[in-house]
């Protein structure tokens, strides 16, 4: 038997988790690019470093983003990955597919690319990994013909994404999928033609469980919530208790605001609705018995980002409650005002959260026309160094002496 050309990668064919190496090796039998991608990866495993060159600008007609150039620094050894560009394809809301649509994608990527993909990239797009420059336009044309469009890359609106929402989840307080689809379509220009200081991400979660990780991963985070009381089905509560759930310990005791109480004798759950802060814990524990209220909408937060450069931020509340119903004009207007202020004031590669930190939240709120509310802070400031707007003061300042 011939000696393996990828002894290190072969080790990743062992173990119970699905192996991308086994998968790639099969495809490599008919795709020279995958054969060479494996060869280069083996080299990286040996050298303990990447072998892709820095940067490279490629694209398709009419677009500034959506394609990421990638060139090998060992293209002489692995000529079939000398050019190995990525195409970002905008996923359907909630990552729902018919097999018919997925097969179309596979056929296109079989014809024009390496056949390697990511389902999905970190921002949510379908990632098609590895093609040559001359295939980019034909691949795009075929994608467009099949009803697929590119996602965002560079300093533009990145592909918005959303949790599973009302398609399957009983906790969805807003239509995450429709909002995501509507916003994506409304802002196609912002998505496809980079013209901003830096990237801008939008993620939509239907409830405070935040399965879209919106608070951590989006510059603009939408988190569904409700304003009235949790709905309780006492009969179903009793069924949970009879079924062995320790309602007192596992549910009531863990209520962070002490809004819940438990009558162990009657097996009845008490709720002081005005004390509830809508954290979802009790609902998560007893989905058959407890449901969000009926006056539903979303909390809008801003500024979330990972560490590069100054630090990581979780998004901050800027609108405690917005109704969020089609055609979502209030939401879109807010987005436009935020983008205008950010575009006007930011330095190159300054995320909106960093700009707000640099300029101050009060500047931001005033510029985009949002009223301050106690829901925006965990606690008020502890220092006396605050500014006044001139219109808040009497007269023209200090009188001249003499």
């Amino acid at each position: 038997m011939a000696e393996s050309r990828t002894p290190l990668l072969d080790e990743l064919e062992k173990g119970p988790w699905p192996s991308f190496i086994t998968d790639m090796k099969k495809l490599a039998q008919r795709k020279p690019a995958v054969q060479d991608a494996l060869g280069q990866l083996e080299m990286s495993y040996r050298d303990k470093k990447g072998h892709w060159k820095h940067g490279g600008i490629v694209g398709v007609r009419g677009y500034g983003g959506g394609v990421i150039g990638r060139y090998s620094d060992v293209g002489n050894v692995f000529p079939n990955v000398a050019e190995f560009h990525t195409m970002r394809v905008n996923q359907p809301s909630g990552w729902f597919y018919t097999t018919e649509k997925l097969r179309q994608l596979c056929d296109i990527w079989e014809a024009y690319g390496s056949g390697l993909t990511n389902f999905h990239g970190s921002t949510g797009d379908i990632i098609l990994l590895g093609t040559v420059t001359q295939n980019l336009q034909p691949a795009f044309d075929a994608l467009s013909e099949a009803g697929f469009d590119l996602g965002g890359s560079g300093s533009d609106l990145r592909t918005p994404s959303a949790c599973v929402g009302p398609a399957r989840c009983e906790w969805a307080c807003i239509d995450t999928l429709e909002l995501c689809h509507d916003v994506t379509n409304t802002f196609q220009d912002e998505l496809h033609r980079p013209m901003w200081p830096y990237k801008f991400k939008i993620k939509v979660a239907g409830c405070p469980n935040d399965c879209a990780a919106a608070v951590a991963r989006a510059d603009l985070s939408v988190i569904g919530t409700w304003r009235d009381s949790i709905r309780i089905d006492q009969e179903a509560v009793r069924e949970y208790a009879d079924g062995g759930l320790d309602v007192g310990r596992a549910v009531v005791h863990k209520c962070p605001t002490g809004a819940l109480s438990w009558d162990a004798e009657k097996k009845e759950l008490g709720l002081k609705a005005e004390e509830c802060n809508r954290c979802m814990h009790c609902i998560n524990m007893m989905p058959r018995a407890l449901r969000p209220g009926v006056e539903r909408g979303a909390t809008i937060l801003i500024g979330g980002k990972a560490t590069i450069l100054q630090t990581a931020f979780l998004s901050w509340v800027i609108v405690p409650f917005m109704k969020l119903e089609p055609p979502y004009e209030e939401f879109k207007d807010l987005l436009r005002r935020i983008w205008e202020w950010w575009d006007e004031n930011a330095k190159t590669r300054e995320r909106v959260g960093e700009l707000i930190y640099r300029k101050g939240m009060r500047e931001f709120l005033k510029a985009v026309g949002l009223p301050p509310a106690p829901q925006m802070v965990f606690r008020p400031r502890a220092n006396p160094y605050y500014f006044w707007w001139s219109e808040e003061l009497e007269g023209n300042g200090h009188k001249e002496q003499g």
Partner: protein
Amino acid sequence: MSQTDIGPPYYKDMLPPVMKENYGRWKYHEIVRSGVLRHVAETGAEVYSVRVGSARLMTVDRVREICDLADKYCDGYLRFTSRHNVEFLVSDKSKVEPLLQELKERGWPVGGTGNSISNMIHTQGWIHCHTPATDGSGIVKAVMDDLYEYFVDMKLPAKLRIALACCLNMCGAVHCSDIAMVGIHRKPPVIDHDIVSKQCEIPTLIASCPTAAIRPNPKLKSVEVTEERCMYCGNCYTMCPGMKIADPENDGVAIFVGGKVSNARTAPMFSRLAIPYLPNNPPRWPEVTAAVRNLVEVWARNARKGERYGEWIERIGWERFFELAEIPFTDKHIDDFTFAIPTFRTAATFKW
């Protein structure tokens, strides 16, 4: 010429009929068994979701295999989760068991629901990124092989979210995960003056450094680095290929713990440093894999039922965490970057 700006395919065309008919009218759900969810609508209709772990790096052949299964058991409908799992959406209850049987025969892991580890969010690594300090898919494969039992069973105190970013750019946004692996560098960039002078915009390059460690070198039409100020973020390399920061000998993996995004019980939290550095040892990163297992198990042994990783540590105190996890506390754990002050202790109430 093909059409541009058509937007993504319409999600409603991708929903199984039961979801279209009961859109927004789901009443409750239950976890039938690990990896299988049953959602019930107000109409009484129900749908089963079978959650399957996958490598996010997939070939078209693998995607077609998934399609074959979805055609056979789900009338051609499926979805992916935000954590790269595949979900087979089964409308016909009688097809759940046969699907599970076939998945088992094909070696596909079913799990990731409830008090388990879900699939790992991760980034490209050496397969396709130009700035990685470590690999992505390979470490994930090694870690998920090792923690397989916690994916297929729901025996943990609460859910556990593990993530990996192959450099400090953190494209995977791992900064709010229960356990986060991050590829790091440990030495300042080596400057290729020829590249810097020919290909890079010097003022932008200088401005890219968060600690002002980069200053101009007019003689060479290049830059210099004040090495003691550099904290190896690699942002200068992102701006300019002449600032070579990758270093096979010193690059490696740091591990952060205790982050979450959910609002349940406690506010969302950042992950915080547990292990400053572990070496890159492909192909299976034994040091990283062992460290993650230790971190999972020390929490699993000690946390109360329903307590997320960060909630557990905040309850017992970080000093107790380092003791229980048998991880040395070093000067690296004390923040000296921006926003460090609020992390310093201002109370005399601690544990020994």
